């Protein structure tokens, strides 16, 4: 069942979303405007992550004002039950989110391309074995594995990132492998081989760049999936207790939902805007 193999898991949905090849719904002009929109949506989070400690002075966990202030000029996102400034917390949270998404995406990309390219070039039985392993890591329920690992090994961000990376590379490996299979009979590859280039060199020079191009849009999905999962874990109270995170803010908001709507609205918006921006940017960057 090739079809089924090609489609399994939610990461694969990204291939469909990404490769639908239609003009993007937001833009009459097509991909450029969507790319710009994505960049605009993503910029607050990126700026916050880079400049967080500069813009939002001080410790986001420290109370600076009376509790439950409604949004105002001094505190645009209001304050929470301990008088902490929500905007400062959201700015600090950007770093945790983007760090998670970025590191997971890079690790998954490296592992996915490495496994996918080796599988595509190997003898059939090695290829088959590698694909079985890939499939296994795609089937494992990642959220519950993350909960288990965090409970057993401690809830540090590094542990969470490790689990997410381990369960994210499968889809990328599949796409990379498919790309290798379609590329390896191409003229440039055959010519390079005929000239006696080492297989590793052929792979690195002629295959990997092509494979990267088709894998990148899916990497955006891996990153946004990681951001959403990190938020979910922190929402359950299983995030890294030393780091400010949007999920943690939403967890705190839950208790005061009817008293202070702003505790929920702003961190949630931050997640939506960032994930959407990420999807738009990398989806259009092919």
């Amino acid at each position, binding site marked *: 069942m090739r079809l089924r193999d090609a489609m399994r898991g939610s990461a694969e949905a990204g291939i469909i979303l990404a490769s*639908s090849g239609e003009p993007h719904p937001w833009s009459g002009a097509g991909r450029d405007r969507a790319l710009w929109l994505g960049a605009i949506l993503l910029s607050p989070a990126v700026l916050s992550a880079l400049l967080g400690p500069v813009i939002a002075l001080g410790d986001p966990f420290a109370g600076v004002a009376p509790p439950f202030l409604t949004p105002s000029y001094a505190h645009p996102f209001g304050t929470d039950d301990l008088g902490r400034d929500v905007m400062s917390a959201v700015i600090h949270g950007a770093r945790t989110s983007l760090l998670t998404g970025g590191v997971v995406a890079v690790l998954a990309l490296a592992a996915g391309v490495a496994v996918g390219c080796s599988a595509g070039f190997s003898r059939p039985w090695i290829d088959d074995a590698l694909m*079985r392993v890939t499939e296994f890591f795609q089937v494992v329920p990642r959220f519950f594995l993350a909960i288990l690992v965090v409970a057993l090994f401690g809830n540090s961000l590094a542990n969470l990132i490790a689990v997410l990376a381990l369960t994210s590379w499968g889809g990328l490996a599949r796409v990379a492998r498919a790309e290798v299979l379609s590329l390896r009979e191409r003229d440039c590859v055959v010519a390079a081989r005929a000239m006696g280039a080492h297989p590793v060199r052929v792979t690195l020079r002629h295959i990997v760049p092509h494979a990267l191009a088709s894998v990148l849009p899916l990497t955006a999905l891996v990153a946004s999936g990681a951001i959403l999962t990190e938020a979910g874990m922190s929402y359950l109270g299983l995030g890294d207790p030393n780091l400010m995170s949007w999920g943690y803010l939403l967890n705190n908001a839950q208790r005061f939902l009817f008293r202070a709507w702003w505790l*929920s609205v702003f961190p*949630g918006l931050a997640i939506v805007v960032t994930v*959407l921006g990420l999807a738009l940017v990398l989806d259009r960057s092919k």
Partner: protein
Amino acid sequence: MRYLLRRVLQLIPTLFGIVTLTFALIHAAPGGPLVALSGEFSTAEYQRTIEALYGLDRPLLEQYLLYVGHVLTGDLGQSYFYKQGVLAVVLDRLPATLLLVIPGLVLSSLLGIWLGLVTLRRSDPAAGLGIVAGMSAAYAVPMFWSAQLLILLFAYGLGWFPIQGMRNARLEGQGLAAVLDLAHHLVLPVIAFSLHDLALTTVVTRSRVRDEMQRPYFLTALAKGLDEPTARRRHALRNALLPIVTLIGGRIGYLLAGAVLVETVFGWPGLGRLVVSASLNRDYPLLLGLFLCISAMTLIANLLTDLLYPLIDPRIRQGEHAAA
């Protein structure tokens, strides 16, 4: 029959992989296998029982075989917090979660396929693009946040639905009144839960059906005088259904994760609260058992999806005949 058998046999390596993974985690855990198998706050006496039960003083291979044996016979250990077998605790909570997951899945699948077809109507392309844009945005919304917003708006603000829980405690009744009460409590959680999947199903249906509409057979159907909506439904959708069903079936693990989050927001007494309390209580046996159960459920869901294929696509049935 042969098809079924082959599918079941293919599950076995994955199942062993998952059991092996948990075994490796148990042994790599900082407290060692003893703590992981008995729970962080267990008594010394109980730890000795566990040590004997899992043969923790024997060679690793023997321990592995013992562990696999325990898991395969459905013995997932004891939850020290609930003072009960892990499997019993999980099965006790499972129905509430399924009550949320199954209607949500049915709703998002049917509505998503329908919406996907709507976006392809030629008469109203703007509405189609609007739906796609909205759905792409909905895909970025974390379930637990949309759940909070729904509570704020429809339960707290407008008062249409109960804020939390699964049943009205004051309602003693049985029968129809109880069912209606349950349904009333179910509305918001199911909406929050299915929104994400609805978005995905809509977008995927649209792209798959549109691909099928480029095929010659579709043109033939039109040329023979079939109107386009009917041709889309009867011809293009039928051919596009296989990947759509695959996608839905492959997402069961993600759906259960989503259910955990939504349940937490709504105080729904299912697996979600169990997961959270188990990790806060450091009830490792329960967490290990939950992971195994949910992995097994994921595999079963994949199997059920596979079993749907021959029903959807006669070519797979034919292929089976040819092979036999």
